[in-house]
């Protein structure tokens, strides 16, 4: 760039610590999981090489496919729940409203609270006996609608997904608001002169202008929903049965409850490649639409 680039050694000294820590604890784990995924190992006895047997077992295990299905369920709930709700409230808040900042602050709040706390509180809200939802239904006289929200396989995934949507709507709300506020006022004025206002203006002028941001939000939703773990671990541990099993939960169970490190590494790699592939594909599909 300029004068400073004459000497090389300070660059090396400056970058080395960050690179070493990042490489050792973020990159190397992925690399060594390739090695472990080919082994059968319980952590104590001798490791034995088993080739691709672990992967074969993963793909033949119906519980793995169930967990993948649930990940996709969370993904769909995030993309079709969080994004539209966030967009709706962002559009509402984008006008000059008194107290707009208050709603923004409140809207973003769940995003900063620890997932463990959220899971425990929502877990109690869903509690069949003393939970908020069933108590509320009782008070308004709809007791027959009460459910064992987390204990019933029919309802468990729905309940978990609602909590996930609640937790992250605020993130997308803020992202959309930032994008909306980047649209210059002249564009609104010009479109109004051309007769586009209200809903028409939103659909034909505003949405196309923030389309790129919507894509980013969808991709964040996808990668976020593949990371679902803490919430499931605390709320249901994957149960009842395997009704709310997700890939990370399945991996955790297989590795640490059954101490099968080789098998766990194989699942880790599947999660890794599956995430990258999904992000890549969604990027491809959504980008094409804009052209």
């Amino acid at each position, binding site marked *: 760039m300029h004068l400073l*680039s004459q000497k090389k050694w300070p660059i090396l000294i400056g*970058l080395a610590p960050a690179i070493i820590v990042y490489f050792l604890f973020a990159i190397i784990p992925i690399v060594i999981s390739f090695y472990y995924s080919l082994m059968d190992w319980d952590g104590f006895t001798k490791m034995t090489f088993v080739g691709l047997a672990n992967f074969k077992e993963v793909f033949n295990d119906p519980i793995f496919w169930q967990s993948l299905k649930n990940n996709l369920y969370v993904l769909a709930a995030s993309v079709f729940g969080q994004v539209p709700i966030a967009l709706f409230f962002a559009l509402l808040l984008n006008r000059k409203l008194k107290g707009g900042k208050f709603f923004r602050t409140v809207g973003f709040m769940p995003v900063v609270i620890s997932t463990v706390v959220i899971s425990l509180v929502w877990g109690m809200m869903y509690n069949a006996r003393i939970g908020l939802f069933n108590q509320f239904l009782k008070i308004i006289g709809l007791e027959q609608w009460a459910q064992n929200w987390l204990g019933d396989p029919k309802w468990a995934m729905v309940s978990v997904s609602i909590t996930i949507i609640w937790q992250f709507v605020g993130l997308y709300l803020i992202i959309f608001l930032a994008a909306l506020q980047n649209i210059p006022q002249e564009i609104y004025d010009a479109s109004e002169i051309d007769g586009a206002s209200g809903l028409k203006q939103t659909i034909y002028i505003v949405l196309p202008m923030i389309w790129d941001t919507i894509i980013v939000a969808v991709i964040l939703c996808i990668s976020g929903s593949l990371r679902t773990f803490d919430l499931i671990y605390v709320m249901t541990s994957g149960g009842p049965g395997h009704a709310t099993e997700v890939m990370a939960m399945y991996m*955790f169970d297989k590795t640490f409850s059954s101490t099968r490190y080789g098998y766990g590494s194989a699942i880790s790699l599947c999660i890794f490649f599956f995430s990258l592939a999904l992000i890549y594909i969604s990027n491809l599909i959504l980008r094409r639409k804009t052209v």
Partner: protein
Amino acid sequence: MAQPAYQRNTNVSVQEGIEKKQKNVKKTFIYFILMIYALVNTYPIIWMVINSFKNNIEFSKKPFSLPEVWQFENYKTAWKTAHLDTYLLNSIIVSVSAVILTVFLGALASYFLARFSFKWGKYIYTFFTFGMLIPVHATLVPLFLLMKNLGLLNTHVGLILPYIAFNLPITIFILVSFMKSFPLDIEESAIMDGCGVFRIFWHIILPMTRPALATVVILNFINNWNEFSFALVLVNDESLKTLPLGLANFAGQFTTNYGAQMAGLTLAIIPTIIIYVLLEEHLVKGMTAGAVKG
């Protein structure tokens, strides 16, 4: 058809009145919807705080009212029997050390990546930002094995290191884009004065980066404070558990004392809420940095 002038005037003003009324109705409606949104967003937290002051009987009988007798006892129970003090201390040690190290190493690396041009700079930057795509859970098992081999399982260091590694990408991403915006001649005059590369970093670049540093510090702190998966896998020892891990544990043990459980959860989010309310702008900026440009 020509209307008398006075009649036309009243027509206009009536119309204006109707429009104004419609606008008011619309505005009220918007506020109504927003209020519902705000209520849905905050009610779980409010519910938790209110019920943290109730005993079990009142909790199950009157879940929606304020407590009749405020049970401050619950907080004592949560604090003492649940080892919240230990968990809190561990969370502070781990989060603060990880934040300091991440931001220092990240800032130093960002300085060289943003202010110098060298052959590998671009690749190293891409290499770091790739980290934002790595699904954390894919690294849990190998990281556990790595820490086991290094003898770092059940230590603070064993938790701090992955926290640094996984927060470096976003830290560097934010800091590089900020540092790139400084004009070039800043360092040039300093060099004329005979300043070394690292002195320029410490005395000129770092102070200029202060706003972005604040964002990064807060973002890192909240990330580490709330982190659960690594702690779950890498720490087993009761005396080393961080707050989220301890809370998950504590809820399992005290399933019968709802009030104390809620009290524990309330205590745990107080620091987060304080930081959020005081430093909202920075925190929001940090958490949306990957998605929002400018």
